[in-house]
């Protein structure tokens, strides 16, 4: 795994440098991408969803692009404004169960691009085949790999330095020989190298370095046993947090419903997926292929076998509600920039030291609720009187064994 990453790292970096990747959906361009990102959750080209089918929409608005653009930008205002197509818009509103189309933060050019796409989009039968699943999966490089690669680079640089210093010494020796007019003779040089290599002190230092380095490596290895930072398993569905949490801005709690209630944040049940994917059949990347798996699970009643990424040992009790609902932590504080993760991975170390560190640093606001005020009355009074300047989780017993081990 690691060697593979290394082998491909340099070409990858070169590639990255070569294509300072232009965003795929440019401001003016690609109407299809804009459509999928902004409209597809409620509209389909040829089928009624929450909103009407959009093929031929420009014709239905009698080619009045200006009116249509204004409507898209703010449909509510448009209906009230009494513009030429307001009556038509109100009729539409009534026809679709008075579901208001939210105002869209798109500029005229983008709307133009979408409308162009709507006009030119190929009919359903001729639609491009969906991209094969697996395309472009796993582009992200976990932090750990980056760090070890960095260490290797430093090592290579150090070796290069040593080589350069050696070369400079040789050249200097040669120059000195020429200046002094003596024939070039490396004997002294050789013997000094020999003396250097057989020097006890040097040998001791080298051995010591090796021992310390080895011990350090062994120590690191032992402490990494059972820790899986950066773990990025392949999931049964190529689900992208980047798309859902990042671009579509869906609240984490919409899917992870248990996070404020209990121990488990919970994997969303398929019916939660289906709230949206009942309507959204196509994704921007894999088309219908991945979403079809959800529908299949829903229809067959066979659960999706997600691979757990964050695993704690059996003897550890961790409760999401305590941290999210009570302490008010953001998900990202432990799970990292989820909204940027195409493939979800374990961001934090999840070692006991990592937990403890946080409990040492995090402050608890005793004014947060009556619970803390009533339970920790003395600490509360000490805070008020300035005797204490802060109350950390540790002060409330957050480092004690039986808070997590029972």
């Amino acid at each position: 795994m690691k060697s593979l990453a290394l082998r491909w790292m340099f070409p990858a970096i070169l590639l990255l440098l070569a294509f300072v990747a232009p965003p795929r959906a440019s401001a003016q361009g690609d109407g299809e991408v804009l459509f999928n990102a902004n409209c597809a959750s409620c509209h389909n080209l040829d089928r009624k969803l929450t909103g009407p089918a959009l093929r031929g929409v420009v014709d239905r608005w009698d080619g009045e692009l200006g009116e249509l653009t204004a409507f898209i930008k703010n449909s509510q205002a448009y209906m009230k404004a009494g513009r030429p197509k307001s009556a038509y818009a109100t009729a539409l509103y009534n026809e679709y169960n008075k579901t208001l189309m939210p105002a869209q933060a798109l500029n005229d050019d983008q709307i133009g691009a979408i409308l162009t796409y709507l006009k030119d989009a190929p009919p359903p039968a001729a639609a491009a085949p969906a991209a094969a699943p697996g395309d472009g999966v796993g582009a992200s490089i976990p932090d750990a790999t980056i760090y070890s690669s960095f260490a290797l680079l430093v090592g290579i640089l150090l070796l290069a330095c040593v080589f350069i210093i050696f070369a400079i010494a040789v050249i200097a020796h040669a120059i000195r020989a020429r200046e002094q007019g003596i024939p070039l003779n490396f004997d002294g040089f050789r013997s000094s190298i020999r003396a250097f290599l057989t020097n006890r002190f040097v040998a001791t230092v080298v051995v010591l370095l090796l021992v310390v380095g080895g011990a350090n490596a062994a120590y690191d290895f032992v402490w990494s046993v059972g820790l899986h930072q950066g773990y990025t398993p392949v999931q049964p569905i190529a689900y992208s947090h980047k798309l859902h949490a990042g671009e579509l801005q869906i609240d984490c709690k919409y899917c992870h419903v248990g996070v404020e209630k209990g121990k488990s944040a919970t994997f969303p049940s398929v019916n939660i997926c289906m709230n949206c994917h009942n309507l959204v059949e196509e994704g921007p990347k894999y088309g219908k292929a991945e979403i079809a798996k959800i529908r299949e699970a829903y229809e067959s009643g066979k659960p999706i076998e997600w691979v757990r990424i964050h695993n704690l040992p059996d003897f550890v009790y961790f409760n999401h509600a305590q941290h999210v609902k009570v302490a008010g932590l953001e998900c990202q504080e432990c799970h990292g920039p989820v909204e940027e993760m195409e493939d979800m991975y374990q961001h934090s170390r999840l070692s006991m030291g990592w937990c403890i560190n946080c409990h040492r640093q995090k402050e608890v606001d005793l004014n947060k609720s009556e619970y803390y005020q009533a339970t920790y009355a003395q600490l509360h009074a000490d805070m008020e009187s300035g005797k204490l300047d802060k109350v950390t989780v540790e002060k409330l017993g957050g480092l004690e064994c039986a808070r997590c081990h029972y």
Partner: protein
Amino acid sequence: MEEKRYWSSLEQRSGNPEALTNLSQEFPGGDPFDQAVQSEVLRTSRRDFLKVLGFGIGSAATLAACTQTPVKYALPYVNKPVEVMPSIADYYASTYYDGTDYNSILVKCREGRPIKIEGNPSSRVTPQGTSAAAQASVLSMYDNNRLRKPRAGKARKDWAEVIGQIRQKLGELSARGGQIRVVTPTVISPSTRKLIGEFAEKFPGTRWVEYDPVSYSGILDAHQKAFGQRVIPQYHFDKADVVVSFGADFLGTWLSHTEFTSDWVTKRKFRDDPSQLSRLIVFESHLSLTGANADTRIPIKPSMEGALVLKLHDEIAAATGGPMLGGGGMEAPGNYVAAAAQELLAKRGRSIVVSGSNDPDVQLAVASINRMLGNYGPTLDLQRPCYLRRGSDEAVSELVREVESGQLDAIIFINTNPVYSLPNGKGFGEALKKIDLKVAHVVSENETSELCDYALATNHYLESWGDAEPYLGSYSVQQPTIRPLFDTMQFQDCLLRYMGQDGTDYYTYLRNFWKGKLGDGSFEETWKNFLHEGVYERGVGTGDQPAFKGDALGGVGSALASRYTGNKGQTEVVLYLNSIGTGDASDNPWLQELPDPITKVTWDNYILVPLKMAQEMGFKTNDRAKVEAGRYSVELPVLVQPGQQAETIGIALGYGRTKCGKAGQDVGANAYPLMLIDENGPHLFNKAKITKIEGRYGLAISQTHGTIMGRNIIRETTVSEYKPYVTKYQEEREAMLHHLVSLYPPFRSPGHHWAMVIDLNACTGCGACVVACNAENNVSVVGREEVRRGREMHWIRIDRYYSDTTPENPTDANEDPAEYPEVVFQPMLCQHCDDAPCENVCPVLATVHSSEGLNQQAYNRCFGTRYCANNCPYKVRRFNWLDYTNTDKFIYNPVDDLGRMVLNPDVTVRARGVMEKCSFCQQRIQAAKLEAKKAGKPLADGAIQPACAQACAAGAIYFGDINNADSVVASLYPKHSPFEYDPPRKGYDRAYFVIEEIKTRPSIAYLVKVRNRPPVAAAVKA
């Protein structure tokens, strides 16, 4: 005041130096390592060799691959039910009734799996706690031994086929007028009663026999005769100031003992003035739980019971002008019957006389006594009769006759096992061969189903629909808490199909049954409410009690006088029940390992032999003996039992199952055949002969190890001495506390400080808490062999101490006071000491103190030096000597996937080499704190109930935050100590800490036991 002597075993009492040395050792039986190596458990087998080989390869592979993550899957619901949230428990109301005990319950389900039983506070019948058997019942659902598919002959068959065959045969039989019998235990489900009635209509020639292995026919028939109703009255022990029991173990096993425990203790709890405590007087042969809790206990022979009841009757009749029965010449030693009569007469309408006898004449006399005392109405209610027993001896003996004479064509057994529990079960089983169609509906195969053509796998009660009417007008519902684990079907569904009603399932039938019966409102609404609450109360008239028919008493006097002669010189055997019950639950490892409340023996039954007989016949505990009664004999080990009546021996029922799962198979011997059967029905005693036989046995007794070194760990007094006792105690304590110094830095808890108070007056010693703790905390079962070595894992145990104070008046000055022991029960669990001796000896800080006053045990840190256990003065730490949860040597534990479903996912399963102990149910503390934090409200007092406290029907255990001055525990806690770090507290006089003088500063306080005993002189004079 005379200094009391407490002892936990006869060896200890004897003061024999050798025995004491042995007892005080940490490992009484010698070096545990030697034993472990030699024991069968560790003997290398081919399997073990392969395991070690596998481990070698596995660990090499693990090391090589330890940077790789094991792949774990998470399977969310496809369509998540709204009420289910992973990691959050749901509670469903249901009903537990095993034919002996009724509990309205809440079933805790995690991720769809029932894992724990709790009492249902909405219930009027059992609002508090559960029985040990109810707690253990959840384990029997995940029993590997369950029947997984219907069996026909020797083959596993499909339901459609089996049902089709039986239906056809039943049809043919009934067409030619064949005789069909349906045999069930007492059915308390009103809808099932209706259904069986319909079945009998559909197939004429059907008769339904309700069969109680331990019969209550006598009391039912007596009430039929006396009041015209074949019912048992409702007993209100909470309204009785004096209770006189003749062999009715109503706190342990008799009738509705969970309910009775809750009721009875309400009159045993007090705050400051003990003068209102009720009195309990028990006449019995073997020391039962009720006898152990009695204020006055008089050992009698079972053949004296009727005569003594007669005597009591006439004493009371003489005083009240009631009908004399005559013929009563017998009196108990010490004139206790006359004394009891005086006490009863002083509390007319506020007393109860109860008898466990199955003799209708005895029960008639008892009913007459209660009537004369005016108890019918105030303390015994026939307006709200009890339906928990319905069996009729007459019907059962008729059935036996029919079976033996070969008159029957078909017999259907439903969840019953007469081949095991009938006195002549073997003969009954033989005779079954004469019947064409034999069907048994059973959860797992038993001695009866084995002999049947069809064994139909029924649902466990946690998988079943149903309803219950324990008392007239009190209903409770039974709802499934999980889909059937196997290919099983409720017997009600089968009955419907036999009747050809394939379209109706029992659920629909049940709903139809309840339509219009659940009060005002739409049916859906009332039905939902019924399911939610689990109970429904229909108002029942509070009119007059039915009239007593005076002529019912005709001939009772002479009958009793002639039958109950005391058989002087004749040894009698008494058969009794313990927590195992009548035999259905014998396969439950939690119940098998729960020590008998009195003898503290696990995993066996045995012969209780009185001290005097032991001395005369040379019996020692663990000798073997043969008991002959009638045509039957059993061979069992002997246990010398203080308090056993001198001419009786005792044997527990429910053991000796021969077709059973791994836990109950061939444990002990079956004592049912020893029963006496006469024209008045079967009786739980008989004339017997006991002879010593060769060999010795090793009973697994949980309370022989450990001595108390003469320390004052039990504190008790009597009502009349209460005030001076506590005053003196408080003075002594004050003086003692000022002598204590500590090397420890003072401990303070900034937030909560958890504490427990245990009322020794309320604890009856039943052991429900022990099983509840097993279930809640995934406590391992270790089996007989390991208990013998003193390695039981129970986090809470109930110590039973005998004490010597001579009761009021032993008949003979030469008698050994140990024959009249007083009994105290003391629940003992980790005391969560603030200056804990265990904490400072742990070399790896695996056990440390929390800021909330908890003594924490970090399993993942512990590496098993066992210093802590050695240094614990309360001996409550438990060590995992062996791998109890992963080897198939310990078959009783959930070692397979099925069994593991019962584990509480919030509690770690401990590995070998790790110390464990009570955590005060830390998982519940954390959960309740979290709820309070989520709501932003202070933690309410009582929001946290450890499993033991929640299961306690007596409400003897209080738990809470001692730093919260308004909490119940704070009001029941001892006065603060003079140390500056102990926050000031007024203190409750009755509270004390166990061995406080060694300054462990425990977090558990006990309340002094107060016996309600009249001064000695008064008793003798009476």
